[in-house]
């Protein structure tokens, strides 16, 4: 299957010659179409920097990132915005919904800024809302709905444009466990039914266990990679815990 994302030898340095920090130290990996990949690592491991580089919010110091074969590290100005608008979908930890807009409008906004036709917009919003089980709250404002509903609304906004890649940054970080499970089930559904490619960054083992493949990052390098394969989610979850223990888990940060 073709690669949606090809990350090749990327490095990201902060600071200057006398005081250099390598946030990303030579990372390479590929993501195939229809994959649900998780990236795990403790805070400070470089996983957010990696996500920022892929989402073009930040620039790499060296190396290339290709999305659908295009080298996005070379993009500038409007081409960059166009790429973000059309090829990427974002899901954030704190939802990032516009509080003055209704759920319907929040979802539709992703399409209107792409200058999609009005009739198409209406149809698409209703379709995706049905899939994400938020049809009944379309006319509500963000402050009137629960955190789980908010995140599903944000997910709807991310996938409605049919992006090549959906980037999720700690999507369950602000949710209680029940809502988190619901959301992850929806991710699974999107991934299976719509063949949406999802790249999810998390530090939570349970959340990560919904992915097909997990990359572990430590000190800016890929430390380990595990694939779910035919394992059940429970088995996969235990594998993740094993790797985390190997990594030193969260304790490393405490020391």
């Amino acid at each position, binding site marked *: 299957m073709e690669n949606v994302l090809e990350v090749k030898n990327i490095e990201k340095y902060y600071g200057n010659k006398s005081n250099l920090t390598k946030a990303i130290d030579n990372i390479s990996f590929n993501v195939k179409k229809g994959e649900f990949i998780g990236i795990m690592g403790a805070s400070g491991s470089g996983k957010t920097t990696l996500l920022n580089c892929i989402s073009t*919010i930040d620039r790499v110091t060296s190396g290339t990132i290709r999305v659908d074969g295009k080298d996005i590290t070379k993009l500038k100005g*409007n081409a960059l*915005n*166009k790429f*973000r*608008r*059309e090829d*990427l979908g*974002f899901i*954030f930890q704190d939802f*990032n*919904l*516009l*509080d*003055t*807009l209704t759920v319907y*409008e929040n979802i*539709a*906004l*992703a*399409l*209107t*800024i*792409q*200058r*999609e036709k*009005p*009739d198409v*917009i*209406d149809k698409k919003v209703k379709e995706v809302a049905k899939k994400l089980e938020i049809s009944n709250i379309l006319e509500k*404002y963000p*402050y009137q709905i629960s955190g789980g509903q908010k995140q599903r609304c944000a997910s709807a*906004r991310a996938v409605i444009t049919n992006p090549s890649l959906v980037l999720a940054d700690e999507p369950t970080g602000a949710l209680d466990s029940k809502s988190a499970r619901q959301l992850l089930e929806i991710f699974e559904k999107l991934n299976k039914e719509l063949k949406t490619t999802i790249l999810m960054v998390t530090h939570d083992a349970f959340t990560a266990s919904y992915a097909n493949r997990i990359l572990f990052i430590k000190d800016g390098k890929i430390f380990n990679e595990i694939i779910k394969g035919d394992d059940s989610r429970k088995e996969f979850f235990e594998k993740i815990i094993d790797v985390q223990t190997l990594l030193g888990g969260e304790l490393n940060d405490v020391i």
Partner: protein
Amino acid sequence: MMLFKLSLKNIKKSFKDYAIYFMTLILGVTIFYMFNSIESQEAMMQVNQSQKMIIELLTQLIGFVSGFVAIILAFLIIYANNFLIKRRKKEFGIYMTLGMGRRQISKILLFETVLIGIISLGVGLIIGIFGSQLMSILVSKLFEVDMTEFQFVFSKDAFLKTCIYFALMYLAVMIFNTISVSRYKLIDLLNAAKKNEKVIIKNPIICTIIFLVSCGVLGYAYYIVSAQAYTLTSFSKIWPVLVMGTVATLFLFWSLSGLMIKLVQTRKKTYLKDTNMFVLRQINNKINTTVVSMTVICLMLFITITILSTALSLKNTMTRELVEMTPVDINLYKTASLPESYVNRYGEEIVYTKEQVEDSRESVQYTLENAGFDMSLLKDVVEISTYTSPDLTWETYLKDVFDGVKAQFPGLAYGTYELIVKESEYNKVAKLYGLEEFNLNDNEYVMLCDFDNMVNIRNKELQIDGIITLCGKEYIPKYKECKSGYIMMSTSHTNTGIILVPDSCPLTEDMKEQQILIANYNANTDEEKQEIEDLFTRDDSYLIQNLDKNGIDLEGATRISIYDGSVGITTIIVFLAIYLGIIFLISSSAILALKQLTESSDNKLRYSVLRKIGADEKMINRSLFIQIGIFFALPIVIAIIHSIFGIQFALSTMSGIADVADLLSSIIATIVIIGFIYGIYFLATYFESKNIIKENN
């Protein structure tokens, strides 16, 4: 010293944030200085005697109004300052976590206020000093003075006054700052940025109803002030209309936001295009939270537009009316048929000298020649007499409608004798003035009256019968209404009534009330005319000296004196209107600008979300521009609609019909002034907002 450095750095760093604050302060100082320096304008040095008095009055009034202006500016400055403080809550929070006390924070603010104060005062005064030179040109135009040589003027009084007033304002700001800093809680300071606005949702049906009702009420108020304007004769009748307009405006803004969303939502093509949805919600939210200030700003703009355009056109209209009302150079009159003595109403006996009594039997021309005046200095001389009869007063004239009229206007002097003039004599005057001449039968008379209120009263009687009895003979009115006409010149139509009778009417010598001489100066140039004028008006002229010596009272009105007086009054009105208008304009624009900036800084997060989901800078700037544009346009559009009716009403009450061309030119002038100041604030707000929402990558 460290605190001082901190203040200095703060100002430097946040100079962009302070731009609108600075601009408002500088504009305030400039305007304040310019208007207070009027007294020492170069043009003022060249005006004549009667205009000097007007300028003294103007200076006094401007001094008085300046107090009011200072209060407005003080509130504005405190408001603007408060906005800046709010934006810096987090900064203060950090200072406090570092162990800085409230007192030290107050000190930082104190230094900042002093610095900003000194800079803005300095810049404002410099601009003001140069700006006041422009003012000279305006002054010379209004007073119709030729400014042959230009001289640079600096007014020390205005300078000191500006410094003192603004020092007081800054002091108020300092006190206010100290109080507000002492009230802050650390936790609120640190969390200030995180507070989320609550979205107000309105029922669209209620919105629609309220919108329609407010439109209806506004329409009714418009109808009253335009079509029914003549019923609004006193303030007690006007203020309900004003209250109606104000409340309707408030509810209009309240309902407009909810309605707007519903309306646009039905037009899917507009609604689902670009960031329109977002823009719409932003505006909706903004109007919702600022209904009251929007209303206040709208009304201030309405007042500004109305007073600026009416005051400017009033000047032109009055000048034109003056030309009409002063057809000749001079009117002179004296009391005729003086008795040898009489007892006045205080019981004192007034005795007239033999010369006085004799002179009163003679013509004005006789008096003039007697005082050594050369009659060849006058041309087109017409001399007439007016008569009165104790049998014919306002009360006896209005006999049929007297009770009703008295109930309506209890203050009128109903005992006043009616003035009577002979047909042939009046026709001579009418011919000279270019007025309508009359031809009467032996039993007819004509009522001449052009003072609006009296015309209304007299017409009531004329429509019933209007028959009068004079010297034992009955006269019927030739017309069932008053005709316009007058004998004495004045600044406006003030003839309260003259009865024109046929020459056959047996009026006797002792019924003579006044002897009136009407003439033009026999001169070609303005200088020659002024020389003759001086003979009549200057206390030291030989004519006045000789008249005084004989104790003879000769009164009069001259074209030049009427002109000067009137020009002065309109000038005062124009000056005060421009002064207040500009201050109102600055205040409303500044409040709008600050409201928008608060909004922009609160909404930083929203724009970053837009960016993250792929909206490009062009789109974001466009949405910001539309938002600010609508926010600025809304109050001024409604204010313009209000003022269309306001101007009409103001003109109809002040001076009848204004010339369309006059009105147009003054409206254009108003648009230029408002467009300039409002436009500057709009642009400054747009660029500053753009700056605020910019991501610092």
